[in-house]
């Protein structure tokens, strides 16, 4: 449940930034990227869709993504995603708690987008 809320709030923050944050707006202006965050079991899952400056998000699992960040479990996802440490995702990947499916370059792009938005 914690992870569902976190993903929901993240989506809201990105939505607001896509309207009000000029740096973020510039950053996403040319991007057409679909990023899925989910757990190995599937739910909770949420798709973040960037389409040339527009942003929206949909709850639920899907196969229609450019990159999927697949967390071992919701608690791990929550603790890493809320960590202030810059290398939390890297360490999680190294420990087998995070797999990146699809184009991993977009995962880094998404992480940078979040930094700009928050």
């Amino acid at each position, binding site marked *: 449940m914690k992870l569902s809320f976190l993903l929901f709030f993240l989506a809201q923050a990105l939505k607001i930034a896509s309207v009000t944050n000029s740096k973020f707006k510039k950053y996403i202006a040319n991007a*057409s990227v679909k990023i899925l965050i989910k757990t190995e079991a599937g739910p909770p899952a949420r798709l973040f869709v960037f389409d040339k400056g527009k942003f929206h998000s949909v709850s639920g699992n899907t196969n229609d993504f450019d990159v999927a960040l697949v967390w071992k479990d919701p608690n791990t996802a929550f603790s890493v995603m809320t960590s202030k440490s810059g290398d939390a995702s890297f360490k999680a*990947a*190294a*420990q*087998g708690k995070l797999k990146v499916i699809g*184009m*991993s370059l977009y995962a880094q792009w998404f992480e940078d987008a979040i930094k700009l938005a928050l």
Partner: protein
Amino acid sequence: MGKIYGGHLAAKYLKEIQNVKMVFTLSGGHIENILDGLNKYGIRTIDVRHEQAAAMMAHAWSIYKNEPGVCLVTAGPGFTNALTGIVNAYLDSAPLVVLCGRHPIRDDLTGALQEMNQIDMVKPVTKWCATCYDIKRIPEYLSLAFKQATSGRPGPVFLELPPDILFIQTDEENVALPPKRDHKTALCPDPVAISEAVKIIDSAKQPLFIGGSGVGFSGCKKELEAFIEKTGMPFALLNNGRGTLPDNHPLSISDGGFTGITTGLPQADLVVLAGIRLNWVMQGTKLFPQAKVVRIDIAEHEIDRNRATDLGLVGDCKQVFGELTQKVKKNDHSQWLNTLQNAYKAFMTTELEKRTTPSDPIHPLRLVDRIMEVFGTDAFYVADGGDTCYWGLAGFQSAHPSGVQITAGSLLGCLGTGIPFALAAKLAHPDKPVIVLNGDGSFGFNSMEFDTAVRHNIPIICVVNNDCAWGMIKHSQEMSLGPDRCTCSELGLRRYEKMVEGLGGHGEYVTQDQEIVPALQRAVASGKPSCINVVTDHTVTSPATVIFYQNLSNF
């Protein structure tokens, strides 16, 4: 001693002083006398079908043999055709020696055949260029050309030889051949700077070493190995540095390809960069804003270029590694290496799966994996194309210096370099398999060099990663313009293997995963230059395309 022609004198110098064994050329009237001289002095000539290929092959020769590569082209269009290859060598800092014909001095400003100002055109893209006006000074000019090409940071040089001095004779005894100086003035940094670097290296917890062409040209395998193994630093070698230590070295992260580097750099607390420029290929400074940086480069102006360096060591890599190794403490970063490898493999989940899973249509990574299955690391690999460069970088591994060359992925981004590089690799290492992975777009530029391969019996194996498009451009147009507005980026399905068969080579057409390995084996058995035309998944986009697109869209 009797009389000697100017063209013969040039050949004599190349043979007797520089010990040049091979010259890449295309015949022409203005250079006839040099060609005759090369024949007289027993220098092998590889005559190509377009001068661009001659320049690229000589460039490649310099990398595979670690000695200057020589190309000889005729005046006018011979010169302009060679320009792309010269620029490529310039941006790659390769010691290419270009000998070029010229319209006669006698006919200056008369509208002579192929009269043009070649020197002013070539000056901005060479390290040194000159015209020789005196037959007696031909050896002296050649001596200067070779010295300029190889001293300090290497680079291409250009020497114009007009027919007025090539087609006349002089007394041979009156011409001195300047000796080749074998001494190397190796530049080494100040001992204080070395000590400071040692402190930084010793205190690093998560260091990463990236070596480039400067490592390759320095001929520093022994010194690099000692440095890496004493410091315990994970490393990646790129460009002409690739293979100085084998890709399967326990501290190498080359199995991660591009992803290994881009995953490791942001986490490193120290990045040691040796003989590599922080240009767009390295994404400038974006990847490691926080890390300390130690840079080793023979060119002082590179030390702070695009990124303020914590410590710069100006010098030859071989000398610098030798000095550092004596002073650094023995260290073990195996835990950091292990963490890094696990992390980049997690980021490569899809890539690793694509490599090992049969696919229909064939995924390019699977194609690379099948090629590696047949030839392993005891081979030379070249990748040429857009997305194709990425697939080659991700999957090819070699145990040999310069064993993996991503030729179109360098600064000029010059498609068409693959076949010339592969031909030079095979000439330099005739006993080893040489495989070039070509995009179907890039194949078109120099595919007539299969005629060169057949005439000179150079049995390379060219695998065409055929996505029926200029894939990188098409996929970036899909991102920028939309899939319905792609322009000039489709190529259609073409039977390139039949073209190679028509030229006298061996051809194979592959559409199914299980056909790849047998087709490669038949190509080897044929003993001929071969083209294996493999139809791959045209929908696949590489991360290189995304970076390419981001670079050109973020204004």
